[in-house]
């Protein structure tokens, strides 16, 4: 359960989050959409403790976030751009994070096989292609089998095959009852992966609900059309 209450964040002059309030129940797969700069990434980073909010509060699994860190044990995160220490070897990176957390990465081998990372394991990260780095990021995010998963534009750098494998994986995680949060600009992808959608505009929630209801309300066939319509509406 993720509860966000009246979250605000300002970067310099720019108000990125303006009193954002949200409840995300356990086991729900949710897409976060919105134009560039709407605050999607900032929201996810605030949930992870990477960004400190100016005011408001966040509770994840009954733990109120205030600089604590152990709650992150239950969260897997795949960043928008996967960049890691260049000299490091892929398997060393995975082992390092495993040692750091002091827990076994139960899905490590499984994910390596699924993403076909075996031939890359003994290469330095700097020679990996962008897509393969993304796959390493996905592996890092999911290998500890966390209860909550955050994906920030996960398929942006993946080729169609990897993207397909990745989506299959998300489906599996969903069926396992995970709470999944995905930001994406690819609406067709979200339609496949999530049932709920949060539309963020200028730092606040403009719409939050089931995708099928959103489509019905706006008399649209596809999510893309419905979101486009939402974006055209004037802000109250």
């Amino acid at each position: 359960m993720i509860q966000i209450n009246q979250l605000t964040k300002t970067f310099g002059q720019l108000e990125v989050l303006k009193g954002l309030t949200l409840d995300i129940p356990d086991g729900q797969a949710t897409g976060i959409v919105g134009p560039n700069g709407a605050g999607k990434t900032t929201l996810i980073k605030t949930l992870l403790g990477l960004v400190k909010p100016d005011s408001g509060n966040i509770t994840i699994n009954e733990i109120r976030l205030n600089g604590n860190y152990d709650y992150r044990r239950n969260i897997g995160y795949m960043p928008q751009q996967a960049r890691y220490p260049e000299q490091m070897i892929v398997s060393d990176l995975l082992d390092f994070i495993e040692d750091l957390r002091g827990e076994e990465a139960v899905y490590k081998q499984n994910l390596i096989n699924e993403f076909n990372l075996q031939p890359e394991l003994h290469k330095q990260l700097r020679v990996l292609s962008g897509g393969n780095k993304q796959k390493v990021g996905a592996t890092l995010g999911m290998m500890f089998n966390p209860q909550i998963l955050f994906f920030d534009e996960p398929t942006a750098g993946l080729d169609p095959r990897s993207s397909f494998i990745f989506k299959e994986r998300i489906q599996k995680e969903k069926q396992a009852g995970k709470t999944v949060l995905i930001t994406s600009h690819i609406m067709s992808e979200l339609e496949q992966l999530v049932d709920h959608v949060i539309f963020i505009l200028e730092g606040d929630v403009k719409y939050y609900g089931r995708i099928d209801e959103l489509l019905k309300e706006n008399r649209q066939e596809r999510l893309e059309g419905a979101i486009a319509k939402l974006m055209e509406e004037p802000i109250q």
Partner: protein
Amino acid sequence: MMKVYWQILRNEFQTLLRAKWVLGYGLIFLLLTDTLFRFAGGGTEVWVSVSNIMLLLIPIISLIYGLLYIYQSRDYLELLLTQPVNRSTLFWGLYTGISAPLTVAFIVGSALPLAWHGGLTEGSASQLFLVLTLGSILTFIFVGLGFVMGLWFYDDKIKGFGFSIIIWLFMAVIYDGLIMIIIFMFGDYPLETGIITVTMLNPMDLARILILMEFDISALMGYTGAVFNQFFGTSLGTFASFAMLSLWLVIPAYAGLRVFKKKDF
């Protein structure tokens, strides 16, 4: 918590060693000491020369490396911060993980030529010890400053580099120039206490003076040297100097920690 710290420290060591340029850094000191041994024959002259170069080189290299490390590791920092790891632990792991290998490279590089040149007499042992200690302290101080600058100007690398170079230039050159001007302009007044205080505020000057005292070459500095000798030559002076250096060791590191804990990544 300690376990996490050691994991981070170990990983930094491995990464730095793999990058090989730390070995190059050690090699510079190795070649330097070795060459000096060949030309000067050993003893005091070698360590005076090593200390002269060390006093200029270590601050700039450590400062720039600390800064570059922050700039180069943004995504890596982000990855570590998304793990169940305390920010303070992470900071100390990174800070010591960068400073320690640089220190080791300096110490090993400088001291290794002793193995084949010999020449560690009773007199030069304490000199060697002082040079190595000061070099190590300076490494930690300036890596800390580099971290502060990198975290402070996280999104503005040009400013980060600019201010770092200015800090180094200020401490290495301008500061002494200003002291000279003050002495020159107000030479008629009793300035000794003031000058000593001001000198102690600059870690590079402080290290320089401790070396001058140890090598007993303060006489070269004339009247100022005599004044310094009167203060820094005493046990109170030595104590005060090391107290100031310790303060310098603590302040940049803690400033870095504070910025790091509050920072948005």
